[in-house]
């Protein structure tokens, strides 16, 4: 197989890849990028503990079909109750609605009662895998709900019957360009142009050592309307005088999109490359911290990558942190000080991937406390619920107004889980629902910490004719941070 450079690939090779399945399962990590500007990657065969649907069978029978997952509810008092499932809101039938419906599909697939057909596959992809239903459930399968949905997708891809046609473009793009946006590698750096013009070039960590890697993510790099996110982030880092670098054109996708679509081989391919690269950067370039402003990348690094048995060894000495947490730590130590006032009424949207997806579930695997496989409790200290809010409140002049559905009960923007690509009209409609919820607070700006949500919510605002303006938290911080931070 001929390797390719700079995102270019011979047409015949691409066609070959497109013919069977998704065309990516045959590649190994070594076939992606044999070297990163002199950094030779070692050959590491990684073992992944990613469960199949069959392996989850006992777990999914723990669902009672009680339907608690259908509605976001808090006792209070006063109690609050709201719809939580975007697919349930749009498509109504029980199968689409929350984990109860998806588990019905899973049971039917495993029992043989349901055979693959277009409508079933379509229904399985009409889910944001947002985890809103998971937040409501109290049973033993709770920790595995997104995993069960994605395991169905993995089976779909493994059986060669999916994902959906529009989503296959993503998979092919990932194969050809190492990003889901069909963007040539050189375009990945377009967001840095203003910095070059200002004489503030951003260091390439492959060429110059740096302790901080700013991992931009494909959405921030290629999706033009949200390039403001990496631009604001880099601007803040410059103002703070941080020693940071980026991977430039050599950055490749984190693999989150592939994983969400069930293309596990594509995910493993890029994840293994990234893990090896991070290890090398640590050993040879002094990398200690990876900062990302993309909730999807962050989720992938925190939840998906640890499914590699080699994760601990590859990431030893390297901390992964979301921009909001990184800046919050600086704020708390007095290194981030705001000079300007921003008299805005804002509301905050919790992205699923930076929020409830980072919940840790305590399971009594051996049955020493309760019984084998019992879900004991959850820990949400890694969920970025309060940190963005505290930063927002720290900005002088900000009037933060909360929506009805927040934190673990946040209503998904509707873009995740491959929906924005596969069903963009529905994604935008659902974002419109969230925008409306934001409008009801009286806010005129909606802030988030995910470029994917940012883009989709913007689509929702445009679709509904709303005047709500979308901002990333970094944009607000950049506005009020003085040029020379003390």
């Amino acid at each position, binding site marked *: 197989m001929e390797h390719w450079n700079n995102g270019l690939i011979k047409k015949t090779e691409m066609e070959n890849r497109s013919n069977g399945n998704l065309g990516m399962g045959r590649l190994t990590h070594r076939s992606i990028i044999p070297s990163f500007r002199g950094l030779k990657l070692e050959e590491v065969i990684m073992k992944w503990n990613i469960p199949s649907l069959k392996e989850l069978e006992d777990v999914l029978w723990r669902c009672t079909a009680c339907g*608690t997952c259908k509605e976001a509810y808090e006792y209070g008092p006063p109690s609050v109750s709201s719809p939580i499932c975007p697919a349930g809101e749009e498509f109504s039938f*029980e199968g689409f609605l929350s984990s109860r419906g998806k588990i*019905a599909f899973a049971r039917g697939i495993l*029992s043989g009662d349901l055979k693959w057909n277009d409508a079933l596959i379509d229904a399985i992809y009409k889910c944001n895998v947002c985890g809103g239903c998971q937040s409501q459930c*109290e049973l033993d399968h709770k920790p595995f709900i997104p995993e069960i949905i994605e395991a169905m997708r993995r089976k779909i891809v493994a059986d060669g019957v999916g994902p959906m046609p529009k989503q296959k473009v993503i998979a092919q793009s990932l194969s050809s360009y190492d990003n889901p946006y069909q963007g040539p590698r050189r375009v990945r750096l377009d967001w840095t142009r203003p910095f070059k013009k200002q004489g503030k070039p951003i260091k390439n960590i492959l060429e110059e050592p740096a302790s901080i890697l700013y991992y931009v993510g494909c959405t921030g790099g290629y999706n033009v309307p949200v390039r403001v996110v990496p631009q604001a982030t880099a601007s803040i880092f410059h103002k703070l005088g941080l020693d940071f670098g980026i991977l430039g054109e050599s950055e490749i996708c984190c693999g989150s999109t592939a994983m969400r679509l069930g293309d596990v081989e594509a995910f493993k391919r890029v994840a293994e490359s990234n893990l090896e690269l991070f290890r090398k950067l640590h050993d040879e370039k002094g990398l200690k911290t990876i900062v990302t402003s993309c909730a999807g990348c962050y989720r992938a690094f925190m939840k998906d990558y640890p499914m590699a048995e080699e994760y601990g060894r590859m990431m030893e000495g390297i901390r992964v942190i979301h921009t909001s947490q990184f800046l919050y730590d600086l704020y708390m130590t007095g290194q981030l000080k705001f000079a300007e006032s921003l008299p805005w009424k804002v509301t905050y949207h919790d992205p699923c991937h930076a929020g409830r997806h980072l919940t840790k579930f305590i399971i009594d695997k051996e049955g020493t406390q309760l019984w084998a496989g019992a879900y004991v409790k959850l820990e949400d200290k890694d969920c970025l619920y309060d940190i963005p809010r505290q930063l927002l409140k720290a900005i002088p002049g900000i009037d933060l107004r909360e929506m009805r559905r927040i934190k673990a009960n946040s209503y998904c923007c509707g873009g995740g889980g491959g929906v924005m690509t596969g069903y963009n009209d529905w994604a935008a409609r659902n974002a419109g629902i969230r925008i409306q919820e934001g409008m009801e607070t009286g806010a005129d700006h909606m802030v988030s910490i995910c470029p994917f949500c940012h883009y989709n919510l913007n689509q929702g605002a445009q679709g509904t004719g709303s005047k709500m303006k979308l901002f990333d938290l970094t944009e607000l911080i950049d506005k009020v941070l003085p040029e020379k931070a003390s």
Partner: protein
Amino acid sequence: MKAKKEIKKGKAVKAVRTDKKERILKELKSIVGEKNATTDQHILYAYSYDMSFVTPKLPDYVVIVHTVEEVQRILKFANKEKIPVVPYTSGTNIGGLCIPERGGMILDFKKMNKIIKLDPEALYAVIEPGVSHGQLAEALYKYNLRFGWPVGPPSASVASCAICHGIGHMNARYGLNSQEITSMEVVLPTGELVRVGSCAINPDAWHSCLPMPQMDGLFKGWLGSTGIVTKLGIAVHHIPPILKIFTVSCDHVDDMYSYMLNLSNYEICDDLTAVSWWLSQVPIPYPYKPKPDDAPEWFSYATTFSFTEKEKEARTEIWEKVVDEEKKKGTSIQVTHYPEEALKARTQLPSQIVGSTKNYCKMAGGGISWPGTFTPANRWAPIYKEWKKIMIGHNLSPSVRMSMYRGVHYGMLRAMTPFNKQSAKETENARQAIVECLKVDLDNGGMPYKPPVDFAMEINKRAHPGYLMLMKRLKKFLDPNDIMNPGKLGI
């Protein structure tokens, strides 16, 4: 043993011919819109089972309705074509009530979920069938009001619970949730729209089913087999600010009955309930495990609400008097500390914890059913003793609840029975135990509520012939082609 494939078409129903099915689907879509009717197998499958032991069965169609007019048109069409219709709100009952016995159409009401009227002065609300307990609780809290919240998921339907004689957390004070119904709008199986109660005389008056003939009884307790309630008036109540919970324990069920009988005479409790040791555990032990020798066998919690501290003190004085009296009788009643999580789960309603059946079936996995009955209180103790033998004989926990209802000394007697639904053998074991228990209860004058078909058959075996004759005649009168949830009444 893995669960065997049991998805069936409703019995005695030939598969609907493809061309007929397409024609019917086309007609359904013309009524409710292209997106709201389907014959897709995976969608039908998701409606084919619930958490009970009832054998899964597939409908032929699923239809989402949004308006009363759509419901009328659907029923007129179904009646003409003789298509079974199963009304469905959230499918959270544990009696298989929405599992189609004879195929046909699931009519899903989740999108008819408006709270049409809430009158905080007159103290009633008018709701559509898709309104959930969580949704109503939020709306009522704004006025410091409440309804009888059942031990079910917040997403469950208020209307379905009420018309099926569901219970709430105020049964000792106000009775069953069906006794809180003040008026109804109903679409008959033939498609006509009717009203019963005060709203039948004045369209804006939803305050009472009395003093007219109680025709609401034609639609309560019939398990959706006589018509579809499209609007329901219900009484709501103020939330007094002070809650006091009286908790006692004892070693013998007879002692608990004596205490509950005594306390209920004073009518000071919203909820007067006792649970066996196995039900007080979170979750119910599965399979059966013996109670520790030093643990009481019965616990009781009784909620009482007061508007002032003095009122609370007066209520507490009565309770203390009752406890003293029971002790003097030589019973084993002791004031006790009720397990905190269990207490919280039973007093903070609607509850996700109880609603998800975490308390009940989490340890077994997937399945739960019950012999759930309304039983004369003086038969609770002897029945419990029989149930205990039956349940333990099936290696199941005798996790029994007794709750005193308003008025006559009768109330709930039920054994919440979790089982491993992944195993067909364990599911059948639970079914057998439950049906055995039910027979004991029926022979002692009890009556099952929200009964699965197995229960209905047992009821009918014992029924007065005049009761069966009248029921059949009413059913025939209201539903001449037997399209509404056919088979559920066991007639």
